[in-house]
């Protein structure tokens, strides 16, 4: 695919970039430049860009797609594609791919790791010890047990199921909500998220973001989860009514949260930074060497398949 002009929207992975440079005609977008320079860049290179490689947060909006008349494929270095204008892609006949499967384990590992970290206050303990306070004050903190907590999962797809399998080993009863009920002998279905939240100690967001799931974790859901409940979000910031979440946590109406995603990354609401009943992560659900490498290979594999006229590995559109 040496003749394939690929526009890399922003730096995302050294191996991916190195391979794109080696195997294609790589153009690096001036992501951080002011809008007029970005527009000028796109105008200058419009004739040669046939592929865009983008990340989950950057996506590919209508303006970008429209600026690239020779665009054939958008390859996402993420499983989420909520920021790609799929309708515009369909209209233009532009293919879209993502990276499902390879990051399932990492995201599930982090979801459970965040749940334990929130309930047992692991980052807080770490900070306490590092600040010399264990020696100076010597208080001990009781933190509630994780094993046996009722876990409610929004979305029992690949990632949701992987989370369910992990928490079962801790004796956690598993319930779920999704649009269609399936036949899982060990997992209890709830027809609404509010009912799921009302019967859960830990509520995990593990579904994709679309029109139906935007702000699915509403004030009502947060209230149902309550002061004894913990929210874990490894989906998208857009799944949660973030101002409501922040207020509920600050006021003690929600017990705690483990958050890997936010509405306006990398901005994190200031009020959360002051709380010790939350664990904050910088969108690192797939952030391991092993998984990023595997994701890069999926992106490269999709581009290769496209160029050789073979079926795409993981098409969205």
């Amino acid at each position, binding site marked *: 695919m040496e003749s394939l002009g690929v526009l890399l929207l922003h730096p995302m992975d050294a191996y991916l970039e190195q391979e794109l440079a080696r195997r294609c005609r790589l153009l690096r977008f001036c992501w951080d430049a002011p809008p007029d320079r970005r527009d000028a860049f796109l105008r200058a290179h419009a004739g040669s860009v046939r592929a865009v490689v983008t990340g989950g947060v950057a996506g590919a909006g209508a303006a970008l797609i429209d600026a690239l008349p020779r665009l054939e494929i958008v390859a996402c270095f993420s499983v989420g594609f909520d920021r790609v204008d799929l309708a515009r892609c369909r209209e233009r006949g532009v293919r879209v791919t993502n990276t499902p499967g390879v990051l399932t384990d990492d995201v599930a590992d982090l979801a459970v790791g965040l749940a334990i970290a929130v309930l047992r206050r692991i980052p807080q303990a770490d900070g306490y010890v590092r600040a010399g306070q264990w020696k100076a004050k010597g208080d001990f903190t009781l933190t509630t047990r994780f094993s046996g907590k009722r876990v409610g999962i929004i979305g029992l797809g690949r990632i949701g199921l992987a989370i369910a399998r992990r928490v079962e080993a801790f004796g956690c009863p598993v319930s779920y909500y999704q649009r269609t009920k399936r036949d899982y002998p060990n997992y209890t279905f709830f027809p609404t998220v509010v009912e799921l939240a009302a019967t859960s100690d830990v509520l995990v967001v593990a579904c994709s973001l679309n029109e139906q799931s935007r702000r699915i974790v509403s004030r009502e859901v947060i209230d149902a989860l309550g002061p004894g409940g913990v929210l874990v979000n490894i989906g998208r910031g857009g799944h949660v009514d973030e101002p409501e979440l922040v207020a509920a946590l600050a006021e003690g109406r929600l017990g705690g949260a483990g958050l890997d995603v936010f509405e306006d990354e990398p901005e*994190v609401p200031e009020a959360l930074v002051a709380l010790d009943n939350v664990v904050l992560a910088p969108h690192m659900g797939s952030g391991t060497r092993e998984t990023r490498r595997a994701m890069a290979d999926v992106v490269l594999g999709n581009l290769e398949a496209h160029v050789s006229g073979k079926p795409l590995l993981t098409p969205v559109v």
Partner: protein
Amino acid sequence: MAPPTQVAATSGEGDGADKPLVLLADPIIPEFEPELSAHYRLLPVAGADAAIAATARALLTVDLPAVTADLVAALPALELVVTSSVGVDHVDLAACRRRGIRVTNAGDAFSADAADFAVGLVVAALRRVAAADAYVRRGGWAAHGEYPVATKVSGKRVGIVGLGRIGSLVARRLAAFGCAVSYNSRSPKPSAPYKFFPSVLDLAADSDVVVLSCALTEETRHMVNREVMEALGKDGVLVNVGRGGLVDEPELVRCLREGVIGGAGLDVYEKEPDVPPELFGMDNVVLSDHRAVLTPESIRGALDMVAGRPLLSPVTL
């Protein structure tokens, strides 16, 4: 158990004379106090007058100071030592055996919490949960971009030292994360579906993560030494929820500094609450304040054992 806050034991209201006398080797954890003083007359052994010392049949200890041969000798009527921890390395078992004194520990009350915390430390160490949380809180994500990629947990080879109550629960949990579990203990457990290694050195050589969940004895003191850490290797992670004495601590610090091992998750130290300050500057280490077992649920469980039916968990002398 962490040294509890200083609280004077009460001797109960009114009919103290009718309640059995229990001497306290160390100040009682406040959470234990109401339940125990409802059933027992509690007095500290330190400063107990001669008459009390001569008749006391039961001694309750949390962890430190030690129940030494001298202490046992000063209590001629002593029949029972109850420790609310799992570890009994602070009790002179030989002295108790000579006197025919029975010793019980908290049995299974703490196992799940210790296992959960061990898993929490494994994920936190490999995925940098605590370090990334601190990064977000100090504005690093907005200022400097993504946190560097970490290491995948799923699929890692986990070697557990001590497949007792705690170790076997750790094994079950990490197996659900897709980890390949093996173990070392005094003798192989035929019913355990994991590979047995006859030495800690062999276990470390075949592991990416080593979890210590065994008792501290003369044989196990400093079992994790330089040789073991070199076998674990530069990407290997050590997690300790057993006792600080299982590890040659100065050597551990050197090995972390020199990159001989890749990281650690530590809940226990050789001389608590002293923690080697060099660890405070390390991002690949997760530190906690000996809190693995401290949940209200485990204390309730221990109370049930201690106040209810203590001899269900006698320690083999």
